């Protein structure tokens, strides 16, 4: 029998239902694994072994009483920008190092009701601002495939935990690619839902018009299961869509897979800057999709080259405002000065790291008197043009396929001092956030031993169709079954 901690969620569900295993056994196995490898991987900011085991016991009791909710007894990890009542939520920042929210995020409440077990909070770039976890105020997570490399980010901790066997699945957040890019770099599945599909209540805001919570899992079916468990309307989030949630697993398996599906290949996503190994793997994946019956159609998203500047002007503007609440008054770090004005400066200087400061500065500049029209407004107008690109393409195709990231995981330290280079690693992911549509990254090969991700993009509320395409591709490949070799060392 495989190690329990390496099971997919749907495999574990089956075994729990059959009574082959208990949630306590499953949870214990995952916790043991985490204790054995996390000193190297450093996926977790905080692990909650006692709470997790208590939840697992409760889940086993619920099951004994006849309960069979979808995630009953499944141990999951939560990115540390999502609030769990009574559990420190740091956002990877010194400024919230000791913040304990008195409320659950909506998705946490839903997972709790569904019987999920919370293993702990995973590492993230500070306030989810970054593409490598190097901007976490605490430490950098290692990529389980090569600990010298980054796991991607900002949901790097969640991606690493899933591939390293430290959680059966995890949740991350995606503002400009922060679920899909680390999923690609760690060789797992990562899904960014349509904006409004999943409640943002309790997700600590980065870019409010862009943020979505999404699952990171070991296969596509697990992504469908987790998405189904968190999606749906929430009165606490005015930007949440009041649209019925389909049975994603069933819809994923309905129909003929890729047969007859029109798959757009956006030509702007195969130009300069792609690592050759990435392009090779993605091209091979496209060929396989064609073999599986997909009709490949070259399409054009002409405003792609503007996506990065649009994204960084909008996301930073929203972030500069969202982060104004960290002032040391009601919660979080305070550095006391003789008067309150100075307290603001000192608190925020000490509490925020360099990337967060950089983005607050950029965003503040773009909104300030005299620059609003040239930067923020211009970016919002260009965003409209980008959205029109996508709307035109959806008239021709069902999904689009492209690389998730132009490179595989880079070395720790390689880009940390060059913000612009770091920003450019989001070039294939930010557009979907700007247009509010959905996307999924799935493993599609390796380049020099590091995983490569294939991104499938879908229209608004097109989660079922991208899941179906991804699932059909996954069924024909073995990439998602590969696991890195990690040395287990008990401490």
């Amino acid at each position, binding site marked *: 029998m495989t190690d329990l901690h390496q099971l997919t969620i749907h495999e574990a569900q089956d075994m729990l239902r059959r009574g082959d295993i208990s949630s306590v056994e499953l949870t214990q196995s995952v916790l043991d694994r985490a204790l054995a490898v996390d000193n190297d991987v450093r996926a977790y900011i905080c692990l909650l072994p006692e709470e997790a085991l208590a939840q697992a016991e409760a889940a086993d009791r619920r099951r004994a009483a006849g309960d069979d909710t979808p995630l009953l007894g499944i141990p999951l990890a939560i990115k540390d920008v999502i609030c769990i009542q009574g559990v420190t939520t740091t956002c990877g920042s010194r400024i919230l190092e000791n*913040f*304990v929210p*008195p409320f659950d995020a909506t998705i946490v409440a839903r997972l709790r009701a569904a019987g999920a077990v919370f293993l702990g909070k995973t590492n993230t770039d500070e306030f989810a601002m970054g593409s490598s976890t190097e901007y976490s105020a605490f430490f950098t997570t290692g990529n389980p495939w090569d600990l010298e490399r980054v796991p991607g980010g900002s949901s790097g901790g969640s991606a690493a935990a899933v591939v390293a066997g430290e959680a059966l699945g995890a949740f991350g957040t995606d503002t400009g690619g922060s679920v899909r890019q680390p999923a690609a770099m760690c060789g797992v599945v990562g899904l960014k839902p349509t*904006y409004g599909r999943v409640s943002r209540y309790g997700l600590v805001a980065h870019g409010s*018009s862009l943020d979505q919570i999404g699952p990171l899992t070991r296969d596509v079916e697990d992504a469908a299961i987790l998405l189904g468990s968190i999606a749906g309307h929430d*009165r606490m989030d*005015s*930007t949440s*869509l009041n649209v019925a949630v389909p049975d994603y697993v069933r819809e994923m398996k309905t129909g003929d897979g890729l047969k007859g599906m029109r798959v757009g290949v956006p030509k702007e996503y195969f130009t300069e800057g792609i690592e050759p190994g990435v392009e090779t793997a993605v091209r091979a994946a496209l060929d396989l999709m064609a073999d599986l019956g997909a009709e490949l159609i070259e399409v054009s998203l002409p405003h792609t080259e*503007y996506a*990065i*500047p*649009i994204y*960084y002007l909008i996301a930073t503007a929203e972030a*500069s405002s969202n982060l104004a609440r960290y*002032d*040391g*008054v*009601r*919660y*979080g*770090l305070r550095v006391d*000065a*003789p*008067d*309150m*004005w100075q*307290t603001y*400066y*000192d608190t*925020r*200087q*000490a509490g*925020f790291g*360099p990337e967060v*400061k*950089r983005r*607050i*500065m*950029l965003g503040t*500049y773009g909104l*300030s008197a005299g620059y609003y029209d040239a*930067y923020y*407004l*211009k*970016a919002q*107008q*260009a*965003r*409209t*043009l980008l*959205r029109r690109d996508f709307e035109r393409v959806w008239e021709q195709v069902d999904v689009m396929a492209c690389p998730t990231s132009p490179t595989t995981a880079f070395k720790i330290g390689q880009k940390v001092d060059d*913000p*612009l280079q770091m*920003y450019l690693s989001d070039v294939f992911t930010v557009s979907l956030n*700007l*247009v*509010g*549509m959905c996307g999924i990254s799935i493993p599609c090969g390796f380049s020099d031993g590091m995983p490569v991700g294939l991104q499938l993009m879908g229209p*608004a509320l097109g989660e079922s169709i991208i899941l179906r395409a991804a699932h059909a591709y996954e069924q024909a490949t073995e990439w998602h079954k590969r696991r890195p070799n990690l040395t287990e060392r008990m401490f």
Partner: protein
Amino acid sequence: MPKLTLEEVEHIATLARLGLSGDEKETFREQLSAILDYAEVLNRLDTTGVPPTTSALPLNNVMRPDQVTPSLPTEDALANAPDTDADQFRVRAILE
């Protein structure tokens, strides 16, 4: 020639209530200038008459009925506060 002057960097930092060291100011001046230079590419786009997209959502009129729901116990409201006095948050006075 960087786009931003040191004075502009300081002005933005003041608006954002962000204390910066001398080194940080210089670094940000260079880095933000480079990013803004890069963003200049947007000026190639003619956006005359193009409406801004503030949200990708097709939503409007999201409201709630005027109903009172329970508040936090005061103790929980104050639990994370760096400084309190009786049932209030406490800060150093604002000196105008």
